[in-house]
């Protein structure tokens, strides 16, 4: 009875509001972050039942050890050429991000998002997929386009929203789309791509095709209903899909605790749905590759979906509209216990004897030059500037397959009014 409660000797209820460990100016100490030993994680057969591999949702799959060697059962044993391609792609991506971010600062575009520190989660993952597999990225997986050979100049055209923009000036910069490269239209609404990817994968299976789907979201957006609906469907219909969670610790200024990281891992979300789940060192490109390869084989052989949590760190701002020095310690990036994906792969290749510091320096210069050339080429098609690159009449196109009369009337009328206001 309600009255009885007041008579009991109870302490008042209290509310827990998560608080990150470090704020601006704080000294950063990550010694309490549990980092498993590279090579220690078992690699189950791809046909293993999710219930028999739950440990991997809480462990951390790692391949590159402290001596920069690839160790353990998850070592994908890639050849030198593949590893060099991976390194070069990530370096090119980083150079691109750096330069395009600066372009925004100089007013050449309105918005940009870097993937610095997280390059492996898109580059290594995309390399482990088949080029025909469908990708449903979030907004920070431009690495997929680099792997699939999308020309940088086309990316810059889109970022500058110029007259060569393949998306005809319809989308926010970096929201790429390429049907040809099986890269869907990036959604600005978080996690809507999750059920869509599962639906796409179900359609592929329904048609008896052999292409699988891969989807990415951040740890913060696992809180969206879409995430949970997608996992439900993926589990129920055994959809051939790989569901990546890029846990980069920060959702703009909200640390991962606001998405539940204080309670369990994000990979553990998969456990609750009976989906195979892997938790991977997201700054270890070989571990990312190996996990994706495992999940792809599983999906392609009708053995079900996989959730992969990539444990990584967002080394830079959320976007050009963000200033992380206002809410987190600048030391975090330097102290991040899993290092940097490009540095780690570089050291591994040097250890293997197929790469050198000098070659890396030359590569970095080459990458910057390549971006410069692409930007210069794209700028010939116009920069954001006055924003008058798209022919007026294109505004009314692609709303419907065939332009309905009301749009044709609107377009005609708008054109007429322009003629009166601004006679040529």
């Amino acid at each position, binding site marked *: 009875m309600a009255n009885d409660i007041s008579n009991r000797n109870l302490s008042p209820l209290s509310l827990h509001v998560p608080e990150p460990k470090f704020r601006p100016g704080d000294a950063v100490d990550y010694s309490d972050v549990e980092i498993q030993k590279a090579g220690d994680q078992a690699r189950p057969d791809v046909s293993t039942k999710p219930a028999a591999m739950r440990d991997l949702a809480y462990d951390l799959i790692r391949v590159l050890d402290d001596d920069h060697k690839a160790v353990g059962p998850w070592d994908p044993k890639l050849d030198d050429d593949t590893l060099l391609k991976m390194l070069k792609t990530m370096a090119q991506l980083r150079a691109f991000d750096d330069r395009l971010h*600066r372009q925004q600062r*100089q007013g050449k575009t309105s918005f940009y998002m870097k993937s610095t520190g997280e390059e492996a989660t898109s580059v290594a993952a995309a390399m482990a997929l088949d080029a025909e597999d469908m990708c449903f990225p979030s907004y920070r997986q431009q690495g997929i386009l680099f792997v699939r050979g999308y020309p940088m100049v086309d990316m810059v055209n889109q970022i500058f929203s110029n007259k060569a923009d393949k998306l005809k000036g319809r989308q926010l910069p970096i929201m790429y789309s390429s049907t040809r490269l099986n890269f*869907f239209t990036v959604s600005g609404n978080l996690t809507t791509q999750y059920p*869509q990817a599962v639906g796409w994968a179900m359609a592929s299976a329904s048609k008896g095709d052999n292409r699988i789907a891969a989807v990415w979201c951040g740890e913060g957006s696992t809180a969206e209903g879409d995430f949970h609906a997608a996992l*439900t469907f993926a589990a129920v219909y055994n959809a051939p899909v790989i569901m990546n969670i890029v846990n980069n610790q920060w959702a703009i200024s909200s640390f991962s605790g606001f998405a539940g990281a204080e309670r369990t891992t994000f990979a553990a979300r998969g456990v609750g749905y009976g989906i195979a789940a892997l938790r991977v060192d997201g700054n270890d490109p070989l571990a990312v590759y190996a996990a994706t390869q495992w999940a792809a084989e599983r999906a392609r052989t009708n053995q079900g979906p996989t959730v992969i949590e990539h444990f990584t760190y967002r080394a830079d701002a959320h976007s050009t509209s963000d200033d992380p020095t206002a809410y987190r310690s600048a030391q975090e990036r330097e102290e991040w216990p899993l290092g940097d994906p490009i540095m780690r792969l570089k050291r591994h290749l040097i250890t293997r004897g197929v790469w050198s510091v000098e070659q890396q320096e030359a590569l970095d210069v080459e990458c910057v030059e390549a971006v410069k050339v692409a930007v210069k080429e794209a700028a010939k098609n116009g920069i954001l500037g006055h924003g008058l690159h798209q022919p007026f009449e294109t505004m009314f196109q692609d*709303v419907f397959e065939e332009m309905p009369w009301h749009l044709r009337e609107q377009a*005609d*009328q708008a054109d007429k009014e322009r003629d009166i206001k601004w006679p040529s």
Partner: protein
Amino acid sequence: MAIELKMPALSPTMEEGTLAKWFVKEGDEVSSGDILAEIETDKATMEFEAVDEGVISKILVAEGTDEVPVGTVIAEMTGEDEESDSSPAPARADKPKAEPVAAPVTAETAPPAPVSRASDPAIPDGTAMTSLTVREALRDAMAEEMRKDETVFVMGEEVAEYQGAYKVTQGLLDEFGAKRVIDTPITEHGFAGIGAGAAMGGLKPVVEFMTFNFAMQAIDHIINSAAKTNYMSGGQMRCPIVFRGPNGAASRVGAQHSQNYGPWYAGVPGLIVIAPYDAADAKGLLKAAIQSPDPVVFLENELIYGRSFDVPQIDDYTLPIGKARIMRDGSDVTIVSYSIGVGLALEAADVLADEGIDAEVIDLRTLRPLDSETILKSLAKTNRLVVAEEGWPTCSISSEIIALCMEQGFDDLDAPVLRVTNEDVPLPYAANLEKAALIDSAKIIEAVKKVCYVK
């Protein structure tokens, strides 16, 4: 050529900021990535980096200057400006640069003549008619399309084993099997997204919502994904999908289950919105919806599922999207309606005929794109118009038609256009209150008499 360094924007909404500090001075050599200056806004601080190498030739805004507008040239650098925008903008786009001249509102700005709409297929004399319920007609439409096109499939809650919560999918599971008639987990948001993805993947989903009241949590996928996929992808991708289910008030199901979403969806570019009344239209338009390469919201009505109507026995009976139908010819006044309202309007017209008022009744059938031509033509004939809508009055299809009559039919109007709608309240459960809150034919008759200036 000198490179102009302009006051940068931290975000697209920033208009001005403080140039807090210069880290370089005139004559300094800088290289790409060097921090040149620090900019402050009320929200944040940002470092301004050099994109290219060169020499700072001039500093034009001193450090400590407040309220520097974005885009102001703050310094100049020697070097080659690799990204100078030397290309001319397209000629057509140059127009706004010219001085605007006063634009008198004349006949010149009058809307262009309406583009002609498609017509219903001719029904040859002697065509046999079958009496079908709306429920059966909808089922037949799906079955015919599924036989014709194996990429078409149906999914939703209770659509397979249970044959649909309102039995609209009766028999489909038996004929097409569980791969094409799919029971889903209970998440409208989830299966709307699954459907959108499957449509992007080359299938043609027909997604049934048990009612559109439950589809509010799915509206993000309908509006933000399905409706915009073609446009946002620059025409590269499509999302051909039909979202269908009962819409509007049923009977004694309370406030959360008695809503008309026609106006909500009809406001969205990229969507086609259909709300048929009788069985023939339900069949012909659902077939058109499934064939459409665009996403379609198909609004049915629970109260008319069981009503029987004649449906022409014509193979592949498909109707044009966006074409209204004149249900009854008349000369004194036009009543425009859709879905269940059409039945009420026809009832009202019968009563009015006995009183000497000859009403024309138009069934819109498609809410987007709206057949303005048929409405305006009828208005030109009758000069009086009433809109009857089972739904709320504000920002409704009625409001849209009233606006249309004002904008494009003003000279034809002999009386103000009136709307007859539900009361502007959540629908009550109590029988007497529910009845009072809903539109009925008596209210339509009253409005028609008002616009005819008849007591």
